[in-house]
């Protein structure tokens, strides 16, 4: 840590440091881009993985927090860059260094109005182009008359802009267009059979070849982060189940871990085991759904039902213990809401016993099929460098050979006690992504069998920490926690001023990064491949839109 601090202070003498869980650096915007380049390229630092950019409004200033991880040393670094100008807030873009910033900076621009100098495509990401104001600013006017429900088409949806800094320091706006007039643009969504929800992709095509894809997000943006700021901590938990509904347990687990970390609550061991079991069941069900949806998008409708057949049984297990099949609401601060159903272990063992035979059937039906192999192999290739640059984590990231499993890189809960393998492939194409998921199903089964043994050995029925305060107030400070959700690293950033509700709560979702890479992955392939690639990347829309 000290080494990093020394290197940074040499590069940027005005930077101030603070030691939290990880090193926190505050830099001035003028030095920021130079430092960012060094952070990425300097071998001593090597922060090549930008986990996320969290915008924040501190009232006297506004700015961003950049959270970095080094893929080699797994060290973390938080950089804070702020501006005091509220009228025309501007920061320098780092999208030329980390491609993931392309979408994250657009999100910050959308919600805070901070313009990023040098960003090639400065448009709103979630909200309509005619939205008035920037919702996450603390002085935002939520008057419904300013932003009525508009029923017409968005004006100028093709208009974009780039802000360029001249030599004398003035910033010039250059207007542009996403698609040129002569391009043949085909619209997929927001109502389309294979966008898996209300996602909209616009693709410029030449014959059957896709030239460029422009994902348009925000059709189900619910402003969860804004809502959280007016809710108490236990109330914010319910939103996590509604982001990536296929990683409901993991997301909620993450938020609980973050709050518990801030409060210093130690969760009972039994609750930890139950949480991890639920996480793995969720991952299993998510990968089964992913198998079903991918095969169905490629036209193999029967395979879809095979995946769903086994998934139903997992949902039955959830229903018995959590009382719900979709929005499960099981983790709470300090543990889980209730002990597991008496049949739980028996049911989990039953599904573990069934999976090997079912997997064999899936492979027979789809994996080995010559059409399926031709459709997926070599299609939508992302290299390891692309995956890191776009921060594509989870099975899609591991398919490129990047070891990005948070369960291994930064083990939380009881994962370091468990014996499992981090699955990676090297090809980075759709088939590799598909195979990572299929092989992770085997690992889930392996984990669940171990966890069943652990849970049986665990005496007592203590499923929640005894000393959880009635009114939960986090101390002043900020915390960041990541878990491995079904689709990649899911992070929660909380900033607290000591109140009952968070000052700022940011959810760093894996699917937003995945969607950011769609253009890269799809360009140059066929229309049919666009569907295969998006299906194999496997994003869930509510997680993008939050």
């Amino acid at each position, binding site marked *: 840590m000290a080494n990093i601090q020394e290197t940074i202070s040499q590069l940027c003498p005005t930077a101030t440091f603070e030691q939290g869980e990880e090193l926190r650096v505050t830099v001035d915007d003028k030095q920021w881009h130079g430092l960012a380049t060094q952070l990425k390229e300097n071998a001593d630092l090597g922060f090549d993985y930008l986990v996320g950019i969290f915008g924040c409004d501190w009232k006297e200033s506004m700015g961003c927090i950049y959270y970095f991880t080094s893929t080699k040393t797994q060290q973390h670094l938080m950089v804070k860059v702020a501006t005091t100008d509220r009228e025309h807030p501007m920061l320098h873009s780092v999208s030329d260094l980390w491609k993931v910033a392309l979408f994250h900076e657009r999100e910050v621009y959308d919600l805070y109005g901070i313009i990023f100098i040098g960003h090639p495509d400065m448009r709103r990401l979630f909200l309509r182009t005619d939205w008035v104001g920037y919702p996450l600013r603390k002085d935002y006017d939520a008057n419904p008359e300013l932003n009525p429900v508009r029923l017409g088409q968005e004006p100028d949806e093709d208009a974009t802009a780039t802000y360029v800094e001249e030599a004398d320091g003035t910033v010039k706006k250059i207007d542009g267009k996403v698609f040129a007039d002569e391009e043949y643009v085909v619209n997929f969504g927001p109502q389309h059979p294979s966008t898996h929800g209300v996602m909209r992709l616009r693709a410029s095509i030449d014959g059957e070849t896709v030239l460029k894809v422009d994902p348009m997000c925000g059709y189900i943006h619910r402003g969860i982060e804004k809502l959280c700021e007016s809710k108490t901590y236990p109330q914010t938990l319910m939103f996590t189940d509604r982001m990536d509904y296929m990683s409901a347990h993991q997301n909620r687990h993450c938020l609980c871990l973050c709050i518990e970390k801030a409060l210093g609550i130690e969760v009972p061991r039994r609750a930890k085991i139950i949480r991890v079991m639920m996480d793995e069941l969720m991952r299993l069900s998510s990968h089964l759904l992913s198998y079903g949806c991918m095969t169905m998008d490629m036209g*193999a409708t029967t395979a879809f039902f095979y995946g769903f057949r086994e998934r139903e049984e997992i949902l039955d297990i959830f229903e018995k213990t959590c009382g719900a099949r979709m929005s499960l609401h099981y983790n709470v601060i300090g543990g889980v809401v209730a002990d597991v159903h008496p049949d739980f272990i028996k049911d989990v063992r039953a599904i573990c016993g069934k999976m090997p035979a079912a997997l064999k059937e899936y492979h027979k039906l789809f994996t080995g099929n010559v059409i399926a192999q031709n*459709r997926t192999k070599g299609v939508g290739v992302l290299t390891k460098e692309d995956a890191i640059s776009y921060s594509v984590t989870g099975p899609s990231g591991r398919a490129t050979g990047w070891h990005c499993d948070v369960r291994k890189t930064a083990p939380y809960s009881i994962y370091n006690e468990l014996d499992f393998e981090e699955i990676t492939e090297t090809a980075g194409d759709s088939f590799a992504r598909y195979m990572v998921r299929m092989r992770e199903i085997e690992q889930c089964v392996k984990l669940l069998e171990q966890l069943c043994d652990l849970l049986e050995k665990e005496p007592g029925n203590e499923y929640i920490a005894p000393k959880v305060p009635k009114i939960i107030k986090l101390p002043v400070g900020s915390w960041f926690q990541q878990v491995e959700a079904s689709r990649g690293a899911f992070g929660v950033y909380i900033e607290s001023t000591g109140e009952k509700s968070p000052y700022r709560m940011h959810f760093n979702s894996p699917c937003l990064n995945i969607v950011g890479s769609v253009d890269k992955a799809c360009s140059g392939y*066929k229309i049919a491949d666009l*569907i295969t690639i998006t299906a194999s990347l496997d994003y869930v829309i509510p997680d993008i839109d939050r």
Partner: protein
Amino acid sequence: MFDFGSITTWFDNLLESVMPSWAATVIECVIIGVVLLLVYALLAIFYIFYERKLCAWFQCRLGPMRVGPWGILQVFADMFKILIKELIRLENIDRFLFALAPYLVIIASVVSFSVLPWGNGLQVIDFNIGVFFMIAASSLGVLGILLAGWSSNNKYTLIGAMRSGAQMISYELSVGLSIMTIVVLAGTMSVSELVAAQADGWFLFKGHISAVIAFIIYLIAATGETNRGPFDLPEAEHELTAGYHTEYSGIHFGFFYLAEYLNLFIVSGIASLMFLGGWMPLHIPGWDGFNMVMDYIPSVVWFLGKAFFISFIIIWFKWSFPRVRIDQLLALEWKYLMPIGLFNLVLMTLLVVYGLHF
């Protein structure tokens, strides 16, 4: 074998005895037309039910179960629903071509339907280029699909129609070549003579390896020509929502839907005519007792049974395989099926010339 020709001849004589010849012909034409359309509609309904049930079984489901016993009335309910649906008027389309397209598709389908040999003596027209006529008539359908895609003024339909044009024209070559292979073996293009030539063994068994190759090519290419999975690119649901018929509603959509199912029956019917002996029962030379028993099964049952069996195979791979991509689809045809088909045609010619077939 009961010859339905005796009934039709008797009916013809009856009409001729009470009215002039031209009037009898007109009445016969009308009756045949009505019967054909009726059979067409009933078969379509049967096929929809057949596919839904089969696909349900492949997918660990039950399929329609609520309307009528085993859901047999479900299809009638669906058809009735399609009939009473509104035809939505669209702005900015080529109205004439838009309305014409479904009729072209269904006419092509009905015309090729009429050439099939239904049973012993049950055939509408039997002329010396019957097979040729069948190929020509079924090719008309692509025109309707192209027009539908073009006139809808929609990007999905246009892409669907262009795919369909490329696909159907390509795959027709292979269908034609494999049919030609059998024509070479039979030495005739007349439908009735083709059936008669298979009295002592179906062409699939008589034609050596060459007929088997032709049969396999025919099955693949026919699936491609009818736009069914894994070659259902023109309406690839997950890419183009519904492809060329995205904008159609009501009975216009119904026509496309019916034509799709009936084309499945037609290609199955042609396959049973060319390879499995049409309505001809399974005869094994020398096994007279066996052949006698086979003859007791009515010829119509033989024909329908064979057609349904081939449809079953086509439905089976539709519901098992993922969809191919357009470049792979064309590569399959032009790089594999057509060269193999051409080679096979030469092989068959040699077999026939040297009399090496059974």
